[in-house]
């Protein structure tokens, strides 16, 4: 079999078979352990298969009763009324409204913070702020939901005169703050990974700091920043507890942020909280909505990873 790697360079994979084939490597115990560890890794693959299988199997039964066309294009979502309507657009619209608002808030602030931390801040400030943001990123989403109910919603109601205490704007604000640490942390990493040579070269040509930042560093890191924002969008779309508490439970095909809306996640929570009998059409709706949610977030994640990978190849 293959020879030992002789350099001290860390290899990503393990070194193949340093133990010779006929000695310890083939011992029964070693083989069993290998199998066991392999099984552990397979659990993660099974999880994905399980998610897809569960979502698909119940969704297919759902689509046996409701046409895919009606589901994807219907403008009314009233599964609990009679006659029921199963158009997912109001839920998707609610999710997009909340997510869009959240990105409008978190994008500029997050990017500004990331640029400040990577280009302007003295090392001491960065060493303090980064860990603080990482701790803040670990705050559970239900906490943001409570803040929305107790603080943000009353303020929004007073400032903009929205009728309902539940509105998409409060949800956008808290979700925006929730994804802020993530955007800052990810984009700061990519900004810092832009090679120093690029900056030095620009300065040597007489560029000001503003030029260097906005015309050299940010464009060079752009794909990474895009990936960070995509991951944040995906996170905002999947966000559940905060939007359920803040945005309400009214499926609403609207772009007015002051109205109460229901997101896909909030709908799943609403049905799960009630005692829906297995096999009923209401029970199956959560799988169909879950499948929609899964497909949207999954594609965003895959695109983001692809963008990040391409950027890494560019600089390595």
């Amino acid at each position, binding site marked *: 079999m293959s020879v030992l790697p002789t350099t001290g360079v860390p290899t990503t994979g393990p070194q193949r078979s340093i133990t010779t084939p006929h000695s310890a490597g083939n011992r029964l115990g070693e083989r069993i352990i290998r199998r066991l560890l392999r099984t*552990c890794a397979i659990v*993660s693959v099974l999880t994905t298969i399980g998610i897809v299988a569960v979502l698909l199997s119940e969704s297919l039964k759902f689509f046996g009763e409701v046409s895919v066309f009606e589901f994807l294009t219907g403008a009314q979502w009233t599964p609990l009324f009679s006659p029921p309507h199963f158009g997912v657009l109001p839920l998707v619209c609610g999710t997009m409204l909340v997510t869009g608002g959240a990105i409008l808030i978190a994008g500029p602030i997050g990017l500004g*913070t990331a640029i400040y931390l990577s280009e302007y801040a003295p090392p001491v400030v960065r060493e303090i*702020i980064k860990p603080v943001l990482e701790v803040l990123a*670990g705050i559970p989403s239900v906490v943001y939901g*409570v803040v929305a109910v107790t*603080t943000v919603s009353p303020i929004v109601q007073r400032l903009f005169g929205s009728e309902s205490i539940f509105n998409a704007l409060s949800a956008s604000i808290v979700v925006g703050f929730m994804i802020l640490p993530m955007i*800052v942390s990810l984009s700061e990493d990519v900004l810092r990974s832009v090679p120093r040579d690029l900056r030095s070269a620009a300065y040597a040509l007489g560029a000001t700091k503003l030029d260097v930042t906005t015309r050299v560093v940010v464009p060079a890191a752009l794909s990474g920043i895009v990936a960070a924002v995509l991951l944040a969008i995906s996170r905002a779309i999947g966000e*559940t507890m905060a939007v359920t508490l803040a945005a309400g439970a009214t499926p609403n095909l609207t772009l007015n942020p002051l109205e109460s809306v229901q997101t896909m996640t909030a709908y799943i929570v609403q049905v*799960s909280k009630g005692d829906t009998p297995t096999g009923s059409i209401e029970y199956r709706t959560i799988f169909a909505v879950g499948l929609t949610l899964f497909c949207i977030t999954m594609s965003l994640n895959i695109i983001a990873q692809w963008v990040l990978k391409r950027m890494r190849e560019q600089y390595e």
Partner: protein
Amino acid sequence: MSDTPRKRSLETGRRYPGSTLFGLLCGTATVLCVTALVGLLATVVAEGAPWLSTTLLTSFSSRKPELAGILGSLMGSLWLISITTLICVPIGVGAAIYLEEYAANSWWKRLVQLNIANLAGVPSIVYGILGLGLFVRTLGLGRSVLAGALTLALVVLPIVILAAQEALRAVPPSIRQASYALGATRWQTVWRQVLPAALPGVMTGVILAIARALGEAAPLVAVGAATYVAFVPYSVHDEFSALPLQIFDWASRPQEEFHGLASAAILVLLVVLVMLNAGAVYVRLKYGRRIKW
């Protein structure tokens, strides 16, 4: 105004108003970002502090705010994270060891790796639906502690695997080569050399995963955990509630008093989370320093 540092920049001595302004703008964004997030926590403290009492810790939830407490849900949460940890740590660390120390760099390894990265981005409510379909209904576990813990274990599994992989990768190859040179088998090398060296990093990842499991409410709602329990779970087959669920339930009630209670319960949750994070820092400082290459 001159607190934006410009000294270390490679710019010449001249000041460019545009540059300075941009720096100030970005600095303002940072201040806004930090104050908003810290302010958010401050409002929770302000709302919740008046409701902190021994009643909160020692009684069950109630329709009367002044009698309501978090005993049932806090115990439910402790049950959950204990079992979640028992399930996800061996599997997560095992998977990480397999990927870093055993698997050849083949399409299979890349597939598993890609899969784990994607799982880390799946919304937690989707795991809840998986838990509902698989553990609660198909396996017939019902709305039990076990079903909840299994679901949470799947939610945090990618976190454990990724953190453990990073820790294993940081162990220098020379350690492994030395061990092999002395005639150790692969497992002996992993178990006696690599794993102990990687342990602080693995522990940190595990603690962060527990913290995440403790704060998750969405998967538990989907699994069908109760928001009202008047008992402490005695076995893994009992029904349960969890602290974040209790908070959610109180926050979704219209009465102001319950919002105060929710904030107070958050303070309890945050205290536990801070203790876990402090534990992670302690592990990193204490055991991380002992190993020197």
